[in-house]
């Protein structure tokens, strides 16, 4: 259960659990906590390295690069952890960053 000021974050693919203060962006709160369950990149919603899929829980997000989070993906629970603020305990998967495959195929 989320206590008043803290949210429990469970990163299922890494089997890691940590808590972050309510109201703080997830990725930077994780870094302050010296946890490494999510990859850290630009911390500005641009590079996509911290892409996660939220499986359960409530959260809000700031604007994220459409190159990494399309509107369809956002509906499915994908988000960039640097732009995500938990509103409750969360269960999520990290390591969802992918290079743009279509462009790679064009390049080959």
């Amino acid at each position: 259960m989320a206590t008043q000021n803290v949210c429990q974050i469970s990163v299922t693919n890494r089997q890691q659990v940590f808590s972050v203060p309510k109201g703080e962006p997830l990725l930077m709160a994780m870094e302050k906590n010296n946890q490494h369950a999510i990859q850290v990149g630009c911390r500005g919603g641009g590079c996509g390295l911290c892409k996660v899929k939220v499986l359960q829980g409530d959260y809000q997000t700031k604007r994220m690069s459409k190159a990494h989070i399309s509107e369809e993906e956002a509906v499915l629970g994908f988000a960039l952890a640097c732009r995500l603020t938990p509103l409750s305990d969360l269960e999520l998967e990290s390591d969802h960053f992918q290079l743009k495959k279509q462009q790679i195929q064009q390049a080959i």
Partner: protein
Amino acid sequence: MRKGVMRPGHVQIRVLDLDEAVKHYVELIGLIETGRDDQGRVFLKGWTEVDKYSVILREADEPGMDFMGFKCVDEATLDSLAADVSKLGIEVKEIPAGDLPDCGRRMQFVAPTGHTFELYATKEQTGKWGISDVNPDAWPRGLKGMKATRFDHCLLYGDDLEGNLKLFETLGFGLAEQVLDPEGNKAALFLTASMKEHDIAFIKHEEKNKFHHASFYLDTWEDVLRAADLITMTNTSLDIGPTRHGLTHGQTIYFFDPSGNRSEVFCGGSYFYPDHKTITWKAEDLGKAIFYHTRELNERFLTALT
């Protein structure tokens, strides 16, 4: 050999939030706002730059770089260089004067790595900011943040470095430094149209058209350390530094704008004349080539791109 390209003239950067971005580039890096247009774009420059602007910020859904422009000596050079680029089989589009405010016609094309570049020869000159061009004082009062002196270069990531080398040699750039893998393939290019060690650089990457950073020049190592202090004081997202590069030997710090585009401020570094032999770094020693002190790459340097 040089063919009339003078310098990096401008870069248009996409940002997720214009106000946050202006705060980063003006209050932190210390660029001067010199205008806005009816599309909402913001125009900025470093205080020593004589042209009206060198950085253009545009709000968009996806951060990154729209294009980078090089200023050429005159209008006739634009036509001859455009013809040379066309001969490589690269389509060149002429954009009329005024499309960018206070800027003449631009010859625009897409490089083999997918990045958009342009050449132009005319832009309104407003002179160095805050000082006269007669008996100028050493520096103007009222500069902010890191007090960056000029937009210096970009580093871009893309796939076809051989194609880009051919393109930039056609434009009269010299290859000051390179990274070669054990098979002799090019993994990085540091290209210059001037005495600077790089005016544009590329690192090999699977995707096309990725932006690594825009770089701004500071005068001294002390200024780089002060920039590091300001990054902490403003809780700005740090990448790495202060440190020294092997490549170019510049002293540097990397950080991110609020939309995740990487910024660099740096000082020092080597210089280049057209008769200089290309400096080679071995890809197996890439850690030392990029970060001369730790001799280790942070993974983020290779993967965090917009």
